[in-house]
C-alpha cells in the first residue's frame, strides 16, 4: 500500500515538470518573430551552468534549409532564466552567424538568413557566461 501511495504521489507531483515554459510562451515567442514570418519549428533548451574548466554546455539541433528561402532565427529567454540565450547558425563546422557578438556586446535577435544552398545546417543554443538557463529558439519562414 505504501508503494502505491509513493507511486501516486510521485506521479502527481512530477507531472508539472513536463511544462518547462509558461503557458503560451513558445507560441508568443513564435508570434513575436513578426507578421511576415511563418513558424516552422522551435528548439526548447534547458542547460546547466558550465562547471569550472569544462566546456560550456551547448544544445545542438540539425535542420534542413532550402535554397532561395529567407529564414528568421529568434531566441526568447524567460525572465526567470538565470542566463540569457545565444543562438548560433552553423553550416557544417563553419559559423554563419551569432545572435550575440561577444566582442562588441551587440545582440542581433532576430536575424534573417537568405539561404542559397539547400542542405543540413545546425542551430546551437547556449547561455551567456556559461550560466544555467532555459530558452526557446524559433525558426520561421519569411514571406517575400
Amino acid at each position, binding site marked *: 500500500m505504501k508503494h502505491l*501511495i509513493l507511486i501516486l504521489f510521485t506521479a502527481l507531483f512530477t507531472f508539472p515538470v513536463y511544462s518547462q515554459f509558461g503557458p503560451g510562451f513558445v*507560441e508568443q515567442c513564435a508570434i513575436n518573430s513578426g507578421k511576415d514570418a511563418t*513558424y516552422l519549428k522551435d528548439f526548447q533548451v534547458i542547460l546547466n551552468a558550465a562547471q569550472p574548466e569544462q566546456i560550456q554546455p551547448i544544445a545542438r539541433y540539425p535542420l534542413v534549409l532550402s535554397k532561395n528561402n529567407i529564414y528568421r532565427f529568434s531566441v526568447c529567454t524567460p525572465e526567470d532564466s538565470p542566463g540569457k540565450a545565444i543562438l548560433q547558425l552553423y*553550416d557544417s563546422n563553419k559559423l554563419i552567424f551569432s545572435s550575440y557578438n561577444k566582442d562588441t556586446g551587440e545582440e542581433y535577435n532576430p536575424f534573417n538568413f*537568405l539561404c542559397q544552398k539547400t542542405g543540413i545546417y545546425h542551430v546551437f543554443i547556449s547561455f551567456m557566461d556559461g550560466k544555467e538557463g532555459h530558452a526557446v529558439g524559433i525558426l520561421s519562414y519569411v514571406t517575400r
Partner: protein
Amino acid sequence: MLRPGIILLTTALFLISCQTQKGKKSASEFEVPDSVLLAETTTISEEAIDEIVQNVSSPVEMAALIKELGVPFSTKYLATTNYVDKYNTSYKMAYSLGVFGADLGYLNIYDKSTQVVDYLTAINKLADGIKVGQFFDFETLQRLSTSRENIDSLMFISVNSFNNMDAYLRENSRGHLSALMIAGTWIEGLYLVTQVASEKSNPELAERIGEQKVNLDNILLILNNYKQREQVTELIDLLNELKNEFDNVEITYEIGEPKTVEQNGMIMIVQNEKSVVNITDDQLNKIIIKTKQIRNKLISA
C-alpha cells in the same frame, strides 16, 4: 487514516489524465487493429533517427513558394477527406495524418478557413485513432479558423501539434508511425509542387523538386529502419521507384563567403555558397508522373 489521502491522490491523477486528453474520448475507446505497441527493432539509433527526421523540410515551405509564385489556390491539389472512415489500420491512419497535415499547411498559407474545418476534423479523427489526439487541440484550432485575425496562432498550433505528435510517437516506441506520418507529409507536399509544375513551367519550382532528392534519401533511411513491417516495406518499394527517377538529378555546389546586410532594420546574412540543381525536362516529367501515381495509390481507401 491513509484512505482519504489515497482517494485524493487518485482523484487528482484521474483529473490530470482527463485534462491531458482535452476533453476527448479515452484513447482506449478507439480500435487500432495492428500491433502498434510492438517493441521497435531499429537498426539506427533513436538519436540518429531524431536527427534525420529534423532533416526533412517542412511542407509549409512548399506551399509558401507556390503562393509566392502567384499560383492561385485550388482544391484539386488536395486529398479528399471522404475516405477517412475507411482508414482503419494504424498504418493508413498515420500515413493519412501526414497527408492531411500537408494539406492543412497549404490551406493555412492560402488562408482558406472554410475548407480548413474539414481537414481539422479528419486530422482529429486520425490522431485519436493512433492515440496522439491529446496533442491536437481540435476545439481551439476550429475556433481560430473562424477569423483571419488568428492566422498566426492557427499556423503555430497546427505545425506545433504535428511536431509534438511526431516526437511523442518516436519517444514511445511507435517510431514506425512517425516515419509513416513524415512520409505522408512529404509525398503530399511533393505532389502539390509537382502538380503546379505540370501546369506552370518555372525554373525555381523545377529546382525545388530536384532538390527533394535529398529529402527522399532521408525518408528512405527512416523507413528502412522499420522495414520488418510489411506495410512499411510496401511503401519503401513505391518510394524506391520514385528514387529511380531522382537518381539522375545532379546537385553541385559553388563556394562563396556569406555577407551581412541590413534590411528594414534587421540583419540579414546572405549566403554566397550555392547549390545548383541540374534537372532536365524529361527527368522532371518522369518525377511528376511517378509522384502522382504513388500519391494517388497511397491515399485510395
